[in-house]
């Protein structure tokens, strides 16, 4: 290579150079060459290269576990690569810690939320950079003002003084975005920032991104949502199995091209919805109310029916699902299962009644992070299957989990891998597997394909359809409009804790749903 | 009258006897109530208990000090408050210069170790090998008794006795049982066990018996003359113990503090001597403690 051999410059020197403004001009803002990273049993990145231009949005695409997050974590100073070189503005650099990366102008929004739940929004955003007064004390008033300014600029409506634990997942995601922007970095990495957002916030985020791009900032954008790619990115790179496949301009390709690059084959049908015979009402909810959260929610779901639930963030969809499943028992109203009144006062009761519920928040209410895949998958099924005299029938349950993992295309070195070490999408698959194993009669899914790649998404849709075909009633909450429209027999729309209407498959369109959702 | 009794520790067999003797004696007196506190071996806690007694306005305080050296501070505190104070059993470091309305009733720790060791020495005929089992390190009893033991073993008559090992078993039976078993497994050979108290001596006996040692061949000595110890002596396992008159000290302390409270004159220092117990005079003690 014609590049002069350079020894790595220490991050602190680099930071000083950056502050001085004497930043060398290079073709690429950030480049990574020949990166290799191995975890025990997994080669996450193998000779991968990546180049980011200034003032552009560069999307990263790839199946779950392709290595996208791992590469970004290397660029953000969280992992050190086993091999390879990172150059920032043409200067080779070795990042030793997240602080190095931040000081060099690289900020990152992580795939999993990384906030301090018991601290306020303002404290979360300005941590380590709190404004101080002459005596060295944190100036809370100033910090509040700075946060308010930032939020005004980004058009975010969240109280800076509220503790983060009180926020919904979507709001937390917005806080993360604001925090990353507040670093005023040159490189901004966004790892699936929209997986918890609805269209309104996404649109919102995109305007922020465009604004940043126009200021010469380079943005790396990871997503599994194809439409976002075309809407926001200038160019994109595709990874597969820890290898670099190629980089193209977004305008040069079609959706199918990308899928083929990612998956190595074509995906015929994204929403393999089939018409099935609709049976009796199995879940009937009447005037369900949770004080201060939602009220008078009434609907029926029948065997074989897939009922989609749409709404904006904070419309209370997740809360309704939680209440039906007994996580937060209702303050009034009734739930009938299979024609019988049931007082669902805890999830245990719901499960006894053959319900299953995939929660929205993977990290908080889903994963048993430090346990292995097997234990994560089997935990719900052990209530009535695979147990004899208290003893777990290990080989039978292992076999079942293994089959399920295969079916869902979980990418892992083995069932005894900690779920913590899986990529986000693969974690989601394991959790879906947990519930499918229980052979439910009522299946409640809250954002089921959050963070899942296109290939697996189609597979999950196919499985859900199969379940419906077998007579399972499905309640599917989703913020992805194509998914709701593509999969549902009927759509229930919510707005601010109230049901605003139902739409049949035949009459449902994006416009009609949005109308009801924002009424 | 209300008398505050600050004990150093409840979890100790001899101290329990002392405490009961005070409580029982007070019960027999008219209009005297005692209010007992457990210092749990913590000198600071004990100080606070004295402060609490003062705040509660008791008529007199009896204290079994956690440590002799803390006596001066407590003595000063009580003198300032003008409340009579009697030190029982454990003499404060300022025992020779006690202020008005204060007195000491008790015995001298070192004497126990001296009596015990002298007798063991005699039984061994002045030569052989011995192990010493100490109480919890740093406590008054451990220091006083161990020092006395070493002093006796340094005398001409007992110089022939070699100390082959010396460890602590925290005053308790099971740790002593484990300690002696460990010694035996390490092949330590000894003719005598000199323990700082009876519980540890009994633990040693259990260990010796469990490994098939004949108790006739080993001289075992303790201090306290607890019921269990006397039973063991009766059975021929324990050879020496030292009786410390809990009743004498307890009754003496209560009487003294009451006299002080009533403004009567008392003896500044009353020493109640330790008494040696062996198989020969065992009978007269079995009823006592």
């Amino acid at each position, binding site marked *: 290579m014609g590049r002069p051999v350079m020894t790595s410059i220490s991050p602190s020197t680099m930071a000083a150079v950056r502050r001085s403004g004497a930043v060398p001009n290079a073709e690429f803002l950030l480049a990574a060459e020949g990166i290799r990273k191995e975890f025990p*049993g*997994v*080669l996450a990145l*193998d000779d991968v290269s990546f180049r980011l231009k200034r003032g552009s949005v560069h999307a990263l695409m790839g199946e779950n576990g392709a290595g996208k997050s791992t590469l970004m974590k290397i660029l953000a100073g969280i992992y050190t690569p086993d091999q390879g070189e990172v150059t920032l503005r043409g200067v080779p650099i070795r990042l030793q810690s997240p602080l190095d990366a931040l000081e060099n102008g690289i900020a990152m929004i992580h795939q999993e939320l990384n906030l301090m739940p018991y601290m306020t929004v303002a404290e979360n955003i300005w941590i380590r950079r709190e404004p101080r007064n002459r005596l060295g004390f944190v100036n809370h008033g100033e910090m509040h003002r700075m946060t308010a300014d930032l939020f005004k600029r980004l058009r975010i409506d969240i109280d800076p003084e509220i503790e983060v634990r009180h926020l919904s997942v979507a709001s937390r995601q917005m806080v993360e975005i604001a925090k990353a922007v507040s670093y005023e970095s040159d490189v901004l990495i966004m790892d699936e920032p929209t997986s918890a957002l609805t269209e309104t916030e996404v649109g919102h985020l995109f305007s922020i991104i465009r604004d940043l791009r126009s200021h010469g900032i380079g943005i790396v954008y990871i997503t599994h949502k194809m439409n976002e790619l075309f809407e926001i990115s200038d160019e994109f790179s595709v990874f*597969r*199995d820890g290898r670099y496949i190629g980089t193209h301009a977004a305008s040069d390709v079609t959706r199918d091209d990308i899928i083929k690059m990612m*998956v*190595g084959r074509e995906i015929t049908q994204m929403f393999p919805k089939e018409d099935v015979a609709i049976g009796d009402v199995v879940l009937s909810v009447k005037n369900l109310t949770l004080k201060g959260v939602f009220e008078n929610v009434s609907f029926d779901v029948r065997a074989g029916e897939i009922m989609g639930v749409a709404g904006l963030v904070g419309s209370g969809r997740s809360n309704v699902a939680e209440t039906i499943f007994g*996580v937060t028992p209702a303050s009034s109203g009734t739930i009938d299962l299979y024609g019988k009144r049931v007082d669902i006062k*805890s999830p*245990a009761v*719901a*499960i*006894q009644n053959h319900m299953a519920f995939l929660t929205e928040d993977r990290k*908080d*209410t*889903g*994963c*048993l*992070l*430090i*346990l292995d895949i097997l*234990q994560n998958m089997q*935990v*719900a099924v*052990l209530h009535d299957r695979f147990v004899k005299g*208290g*003893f*777990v029938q*290990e080989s039978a349950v*292992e076999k079942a989990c293994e089959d399920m993992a295969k079916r869902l*295309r979980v*990418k*892992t070195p*083995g069932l*005894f891998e900690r779920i913590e070490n899986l990529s986000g999408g693969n974690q989601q698959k394991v959790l879906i597997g*947990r519930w499918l194993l229980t052979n439910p009669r009522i299946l409640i899914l809250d954002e089921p394909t959050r963070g899942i790649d296109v290939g697996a998404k189609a597979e999950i849709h196919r499985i859900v359809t199969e379940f419906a075909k077998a007579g399972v009633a499905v309640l599917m909450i989703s913020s992805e409009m194509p998914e709701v429209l593509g999969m549902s027999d009927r759509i229930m729309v919510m707005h601010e804790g109230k049901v605003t209407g139902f739409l049949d498959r035949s009459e449902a369109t994006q416009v009609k749903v949005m109308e009801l959702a924002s009424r | 009258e209300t008398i505050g009794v600050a004990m150093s520790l409840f*979890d*100790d*067999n001899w101290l*329990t006897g002392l*405490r*009961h003797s005070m409580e029982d004696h007070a019960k027999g007196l008219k209009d005297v109530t005692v209010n007992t506190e*457990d210092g749990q071996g913590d000198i600071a806690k004990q100080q606070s208990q004295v402060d609490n007694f003062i705040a509660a306005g008791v008529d007199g305080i009896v204290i079994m000090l956690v440590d002799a050296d803390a006596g001066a501070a407590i003595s000063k505190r009580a003198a300032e408050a003008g409340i009579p104070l009697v030190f029982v059993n454990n003499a404060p470091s300022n025992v020779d210069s006690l202020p008005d309305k204060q007195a000491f009733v008790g015995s001298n720790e070192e004497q126990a170790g001296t009596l015990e060791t002298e007798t063991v020495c005699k039984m061994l005929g002045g030569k052989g090998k011995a192990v010493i089992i*100490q109480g919890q*390190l740093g406590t008054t009893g451990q220091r006083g008794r161990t020092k006395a033991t070493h002093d006796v073993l340094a005398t001409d008559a007992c110089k022939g006795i070699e100390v082959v*090992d*010396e*460890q602590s078993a925290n005053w308790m*039976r099971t740790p002593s049982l*484990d*300690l002696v*078993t460990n010694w035996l*497994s*390490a092949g330590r050979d000894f003719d005598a066990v000199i323990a700082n108290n009876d519980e540890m001596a009994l*633990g040693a006996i*259990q260990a010796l018996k469990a490994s098939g040692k004949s108790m006739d061949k080993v001289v075992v000595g303790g201090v306290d003359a607890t*019921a*269990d110890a006397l*039973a063991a002596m009766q059975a021929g396992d324990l050879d020496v113990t030292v009786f410390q008159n809990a009743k004498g000290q307890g009754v003496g302390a209560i009487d003294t503090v009451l006299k002080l409270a009533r403004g009567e004159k008392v003896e500044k220092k009353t020493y109640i001597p330790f008494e040696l117990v062996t198989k020969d005079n065992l009978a007269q003690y079995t009823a006592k403690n």
Partner: protein
Amino acid sequence: MESKALAETATQDHPAPRKRRLPTELSIFLVLVGIALVYEILGWIFVHQSFLMNSQRLTIMVLQVSVIGIIAVGVTQVIITGGIDLSSGSVVGMTAMIAAGFAQSSTWTRAIYPNMTDLPAIIPIATGILIGLAAGLVNGWLIAYTKIPPFIATLGMMVSARGISKWYTKGQPVSGLTDQFNFIGSGAWPVIVFLVVALIFHIALRYTRYGKFTYAIGANPQAARVSGINIEAHLIKVYAIAGALAGLAGIVTAARAQTAQSGMGVMYELDAIAAAVIGGTSLAGGVGRITGTVIGVIILGVMSSGFTFLRVDAYYQEIIKGAIIVAAVVADVYRQKRKKV
């Protein structure tokens, strides 16, 4: 994915079953072996004896910690749920006192029931276990239903149970126990009780639903709840078991000492927790195994036997003991980290 890439990379698309990792206990076991070998070598150098080739010493090493071990088995389970049990040492004292009260022989002046004849040993044993169980139930109930932190609930029990054991006979020791009762404390019986208990709960934790749920609760209580686990009921079970084991430990302690005293078991909870943590149980919950705890317990036993063996001065023992505990865990952490890479 049927791509050729698969052949070359170490990754596999589909889970390869049966590829269990090396158990983490292996690492701490090697540490134990290391400590024993150091003693062995020092033994030859300084006292010209073998440390390990001595069956009596091998027994006492475990014997002296078997009571701690019995408690630690229960405490490990509690810690796996993300809780803590500070009460076990006091429960040992309390059950020892009460059980011994039923085990006194008629040739002795009884502390509590002066006119009772000798009872068969099963009665004090059952009493002791039940009292421990009751203490555990109270702990569990408080934690599950009033939602106070386990630290506080069991601290309260720790203080109260100690109070009860002092109050029970007003501080008098309870001695003169029947031979039948003392039997379970004689010889290597405590070791056998410990190992049987450890085996039972090793199996329970690894192979039963009880075990799987215990780990799940510790790993993420909210997720466990949503997965249909009745957390409250399960926690009560776990604490009750820990209490019952502490009760059993109290019986063994009294039988070994052939007496019961109110001060028995002081600070045992700390040793038990330490053994569990040394053995790899995480106080954050979700992680831990009985095998690790057993090794942790044995490390404590080996350490103290080693001190006596090498004639370490009593004044230095504690200083060194602290350092060894830290060093053992540092070595363990270091080994596990290296293994990973």
